[in-house]
């Protein structure tokens, strides 16, 4: 179970950072092993090339983002220092910026709440289906996973065409068979359904293979014993598969929540964030439009991004806590 184990290791390592897992004993500082004749700077020569780029493009931007959010700049001009005014504007209910921002945050939450059960549930179903012995199982697994290798741009363009009201495949098919079709990309709830379908198509393969790997790690003896005791297939699924998959399921749910939080390409390319004004605009698209479209309000976009990032980090930490309590 290399994959799942390494993921758990990663999580416990992150857990350690937040101080809720056991601490490793500190090694005495004198016990730094170095080969005879090796210079003190040898390790730095190894880490430096990556570290320089890391500092430049993760370290500096981390603080630069905060710095920009405390100013009133656009892409065209450097603005004055304004303290926390951008944040106050986004957090106070009576400002123009906050209403739209929180609508889009709410849209993202809706998507997370709809997509997570859907993608984990369907992933479980497909994994169960593929966890049987039949001819051509690698073939089907390969097909189900294929869209995952595509860019979100290809996925968005594909489903924009499929659902398009002007000669799109799905629309035309429904018009031919039922005589009518909803405006998939221009009316809710259809627009959200179209985005969910595109997302399912794109990423369900990932959840499926992670869950499948977990299922194949469950001992066959458990099923044998249950079968002898007369458990039917559903009972086996409910009382053997699900409990044995608990850790893997938590991992999949965590990754799914974080991925769903990052929704941006599908609505940008399929619905343009509409129906107007922002019915399917997730918060990331709003950040994108604020910072890089229209008036290019970089500072406001930076402040929004920080609020969203904070929410996501909190979600991750909650998940890590669940993980570490699950394991102990």
């Amino acid at each position, binding site marked *: 179970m290399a994959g799942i184990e390494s993921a758990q290791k990663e999580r416990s390592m992150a857990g350690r950072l937040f101080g809720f897992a056991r601490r490793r004993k500190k090694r005495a*500082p004198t016990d*730094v092993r170095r080969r005879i004749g090796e210079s003190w700077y040898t*390790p730095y020569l190894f880490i430096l090339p*990556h570290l320089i780029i890391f500092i430049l*493009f993760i370290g500096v931007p981390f603080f630069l983002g905060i710095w920009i959010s405390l100013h009133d700049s656009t892409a065209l001009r450097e603005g004055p220092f304004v303290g926390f005014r951008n944040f106050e504007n986004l957090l106070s209910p009576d400002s123009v910026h906050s209403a739209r921002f929180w609508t889009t945050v709410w849209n993202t939450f809706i998507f997370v709440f709809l997509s997570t059960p859907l993608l984990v549930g369907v992933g479980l179903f497909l994994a169960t289906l593929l966890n049987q012995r039949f001819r051509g199982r690698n073939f089907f697994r390969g097909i189900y996973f294929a869209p995952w290798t595509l*860019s*979100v741009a290809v996925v968005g363009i594909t489903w924009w065409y499929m659902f398009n009201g002007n000669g799109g495949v799905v629309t035309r098919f429904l018009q031919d068979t039922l005589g009518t079709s909803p405006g998939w990309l221009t009316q809710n709830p259809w627009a959200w359904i179209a985005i969910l379908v595109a997302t399912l198509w794109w990423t369900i393969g990932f959840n499926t293979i992670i869950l499948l790997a977990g299922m194949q790690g469950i001992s066959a003896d458990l099923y044998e014993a249950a079968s002898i005791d007369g458990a039917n297939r559903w009972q086996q699924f409910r009382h053997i598969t699900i409990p044995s998959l608990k850790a893997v399921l938590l991992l999949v749910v965590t990754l799914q929540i974080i991925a769903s939080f990052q929704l941006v390409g599908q609505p940008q390319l399929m619905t343009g964030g509409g129906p107007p004004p922002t019915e399917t605009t997730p918060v990331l698209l709003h950040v994108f439009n604020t910072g*890089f479209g229209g008036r290019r309000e970089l500072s406001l976009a930076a402040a929004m991004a920080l609020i969203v990032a904070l929410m996501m980090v909190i979600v991750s930490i909650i998940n890590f806590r669940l993980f570490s309590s699950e394991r102990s």
Partner: protein
Amino acid sequence: MATVLDRGLERDQPLELKAVGRRRRGFQRPLLYLLLIGIALFFILPMIFVFSTSFKSDTEVFTDPGLIPADPGLENYQMLLGGGTPFYRWFLNSAIVSSVGTVLTVVLTSLSAYAFARIDFPLKNALFSVLITTLLLPSVMFLVPHFKLIGQMGLYDTLPALVLPGLAGVFGVFFMRQFFLAIPVELEEAAYVDGANRFRTFVSVVLPLAGPALATLSVITFLAFWNDYLWPAVICVDNCTLPAGLRLLQGQFTANYGLTMAGAVVAAVPVLIIYLALQRWIIQSVASSGVKG
């Protein structure tokens, strides 16, 4: 890298119990295949529609709804590649950015990972903790500062702008370190006794052993660079990659589905070819590294 996926696929199905005299099966066989094929169609049909539409002219798209074009033609591809759009440049940019980005990522992160796995130095653990913690930071918070930084470096709308931010990621360091830790240290000590220095040991002993991990990291990194959409869409105007270019194509030729679909086909085909060739292995890599796209 051996995964449970491997074992599971070769293992006999546990659910059949001849001793009980009843063949346990989840679904009746024909029903199972019907279901499997139905689901497969959901995944394949959109791709086939896109592929088919890319061979239809802008009027045929509306007059000829068939899955197989009545009068297939290459006019969309000719227009894309023949100078009607900057498409050729996008394709070239994608190829350059993805290959250079992949090579640099693999070199930089495996060098760093080796030091973190094998050499002791002051503040090593603290530094590694800082690196790993940044895995938690969502990429959205870097969009604006990267945009600003790249602008200040004078790299706006250039190829380095598309490569550099991606090189800073720490996943490769974490991933390669795990692998290096699993290599028996005795092998390196043997090389050391023979007079090789650190770098020599790394290049001629450790790297050859790390082949599978390097290959996995390369494929994952290549896909990430090739498919990246949001950052190129932010930073590029003329020097776009294919995903960002597709968005421009869609905006410019709204009703010319054939042309846009031809663009999607060209963006999809290279990764699908890689996937077809390495399918089983890619699936294992993804399952074992747990990378979410």
